[in-house]
């Protein structure tokens, strides 16, 4: 009966334009349980949960909460239904204290009685075993402390259903253990909890049941005690789909980039790359797999001269036989270019780093090469011709070469960027999520371009999220997990499960 089901989703469908983010999803959450929602990136987990927290509204299907059909139109409606969501990106005001953040936006008497608030917070933290000082300012907190504030904020508002979106992505193993203890204690106090994740070991450790989504579709729900890493991986990734990508055998393979013991910290001081060592060869495509946010972005930026490197070496071999070696780890992007090293990079953030949105295609063609011509003035003839060529060759749909690239569709923006980066006949080509947001035809056009570069003798590194694609496109795949290399596999023989397991750090734990 539905008394024990606090949430029931029936045939919920959500579309964004042409894209179906959730397709006929059914889901139930029982009172006093921890339910994991498992799926790869882009499988629709967060979209589904956003419909429970009032951020999106479903196109079809019904939502029952506490046994009643409901319309959740705003975060406030969700609050009223005692649903609280803890997003991946915290919504906290840095200069305020934990307590002030917790009561932010609540109605009440004009005069703030922080003593009363503090008492109430301490009651909550004591009850569930949180470690939180209500008077501490957010800016002096660690990520896990900030997360605690977010959870307490939701509890303070009386939530009985908690949804946590990838809560462990930013935590250390010790902090994760702490969080799980708190979640268990909340469950034992009658709260119902949904946790979105893609880490198998955590699913098995924390949850009572697991629901799996794949590419927006609901696959099924199993009791955790009956599941194994292998069975869950299979549900999550599905069977291997063979793609029609024309993969040639590597020719004239020689060492081009060698990374030795690379360590990088990001601006916030997190250790994002730990002891990375690998070799990337000319004439082959090295895939880089991993759950997003596991160091892929920083790795490519480090090679491209855009990251401050804490320790380690990045070596560039000009020619194998006479061993001319350049030390890329000591150079900025400008230095690398000035040395004449043809290192091309298609960054993940296309309009924030790779291109200038307000400039036209011609001007964007010369971002990395404007300084190559002599004299004070920019030469726009060459970039103009290049722009025309790229537009023509890659079928970029644009009103004109003078259109700001911001106005182009995502696929066309990507073609402009990739077209520019391969135009210099690169010796090293790094691409991050090259087909994100692109339709099938554009995607294949990009795959073919990468293969062309490989045949031309470039060292291609490709960060991707679709394992089917990486397995059909690459020669070898390097897997990152938690900022470390968790394995390098042969893409021709590896299975999807194998890579999936490496991505989720499965091997470390099993």
């Amino acid at each position, binding site marked *: 009966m539905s008394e024990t089901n606090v949430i029931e989703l029936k045939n919920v469908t959500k579309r964004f334009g042409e894209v179906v983010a959730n397709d006929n999803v059914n889901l139930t959450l029982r009172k006093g349980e921890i339910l994991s929602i498992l799926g790869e990136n882009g499988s629709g987990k967060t979209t589904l949960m956003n419909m429970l927290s009032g*951020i*999106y509204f479903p196109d079809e299907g019904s939502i029952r909460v506490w046994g009643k059909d409901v319309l959740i139109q705003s*975060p*406030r409606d969700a609050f009223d239904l005692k649903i609280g969501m803890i997003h991946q990106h915290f*919504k*906290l*005001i*840095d*200069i*305020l204290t934990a307590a*002030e953040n917790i*009561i*932010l*936006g*609540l109605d*009440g*008497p*004009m*005069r*703030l009685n922080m003593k009363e608030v503090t008492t109430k917070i301490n009651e909550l933290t004591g009850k569930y075993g949180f470690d939180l000082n209500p008077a501490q*300012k957010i*800016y002096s907190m660690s990520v896990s402390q900030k997360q605690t504030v977010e959870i307490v904020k939701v509890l303070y508002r009386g939530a009985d259903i908690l949804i946590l979106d990838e809560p462990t992505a930013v935590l250390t193993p010790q902090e994760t253990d702490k969080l799980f203890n708190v979640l268990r204690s909340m469950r034992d106090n009658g709260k119902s909890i949904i946790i979105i994740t893609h880490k198998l070991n955590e699913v098995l450790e924390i949850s009572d049941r697991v629901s799996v989504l794949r590419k927006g579709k609901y696959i099924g729900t199993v009791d955790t005690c009956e599941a194994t890493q292998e069975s869950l991986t299979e549900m999550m990734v599905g069977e291997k789909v063979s793609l029609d990508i024309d993969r040639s055998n590597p020719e004239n393979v020689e060492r081009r980039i060698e990374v030795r013991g690379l360590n990088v910290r990001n601006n916030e001081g997190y250790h994002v790359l730990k002891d990375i060592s690998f070799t990337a060869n000319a004439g082959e495509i090295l895939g880089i797999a991993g759950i997003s946010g596991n160091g892929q972005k920083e790795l490519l930026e480090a090679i491209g001269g855009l990251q401050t490197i804490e320790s380690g070496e990045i070596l560039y071999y000009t020619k194998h036989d006479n061993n001319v070696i350049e030390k890329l780890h000591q150079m900025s992007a400008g230095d690398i270019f000035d040395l004449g090293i043809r290192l091309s990079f298609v960054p993940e953030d296309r309009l924030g780093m790779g291109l200038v949105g307000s400039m036209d295609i011609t001007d964007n063609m010369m971002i990395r090469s404007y300084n190559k011509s002599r004299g004070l003035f920019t030469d726009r003839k060459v970039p103009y011709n290049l722009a025309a060529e790229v537009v023509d060759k890659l079928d970029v749909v644009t009103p004109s070469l003078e259109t700001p690239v911001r106005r182009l569709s995502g696929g066309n923006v990507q073609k402009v960027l990739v077209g520019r980066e391969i135009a210099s006949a690169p010796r090293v080509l790094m691409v991050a999520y090259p087909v994100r947001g692109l339709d099938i035809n554009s995607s294949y056009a990009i795959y073919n371009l990468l293969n062309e570069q490989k045949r031309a003798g470039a060292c291609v590194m490709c960060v991707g999220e679709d394992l089917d694609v990486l397995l059909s496109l690459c020669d070898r795949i390097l897997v990152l997990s938690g900022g470390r290399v968790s394995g390098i596999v042969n893409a021709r023989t590896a299975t999807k499960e194998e890579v999936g397991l490496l991505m989720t750090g499965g091997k470390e734990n099993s």
Partner: protein
Amino acid sequence: MPVIITFIQRAVGQGVAILFGATGEIMTEKSGNLNLGIPGIMYMGGVAGLLGAFFYEKSAKTPNPIAGMLISILCCLLCSLLGGLIYTFLTVTLRANQNVVGLALTTFGTGFGNFFGGSISKMAGGVGQISVKTTASAFRARIPGLSGIPVVGELLFHYGFLTYLSVILALICTYFLKRTRSGLHLVAVGESPATADSAGINVPVYKYAATLAGSMIAGLGGLYFVMEYLGGTWSNNGFGDRGWLAVALVILALWNPANAIWGSLVFGALYIIYIYIPGLSRAQQELCKMLPYVVTIVVLIFTSRRNKPENQPPASLGLSYFREER
């Protein structure tokens, strides 16, 4: 001793207008609006108060000081409100650039003040002829008895009521920002409107309310200058750069109105210290007068080197906010 007492009295006299302006600007900036129109609004507030008093005294047979005072305060508040309304409508509702609107408002407000101030001077018979002595007497009234006490009375009770009001307002604003629910919400709006919005706080309402209230407080600074400092008369551009000093004081006060109280005293003192340093030539005196600005620049540089996040400008200062449509 008497020199020190008059020095302090004069420093306070200089500081009050700046304090009103700074308190108003702090409230405004706390909502994320950098209102560079504050100097113009102070002109508008000052001249409106003068106009109100002038026409009242002209029409009444025997003008009552208290009535004149109330009328001039009301006119001052309404006119400053109008200035603030122009700013908020353009920046919040029409999403125009805050710097551009603020500077245009200062051009407008300064012209507005000088135009009407100059015009009624002329009506009254020539430059400096306008005088609303009756009303001004209410503004300049001291507390009888207390102001007569030697030293203490001269230091603390030698001022009109607006002086005390400026201090009280600054304290109230600090209390509001630190101890009330709406104050907390306002700080959140200025720091991160997106976060405030998602917490259910009505961002535009807070931006409007804070900026309008701030404008009215700043307008009182103009009124103080006209009524108490000048004694109910007008001199074109007489208010000078005090409006910008108020904007500078916001930085010195680290966005805390209570700090602005002593800060205004420091600015007031720096503004007139040249008179009290013996042996300065006139040229050196002029160099002395740049001290408030130099001090502000030094403070600005030091705070930008990030000692404490609380001392930074509100994080969203100068940016317009609108919720992205989903």
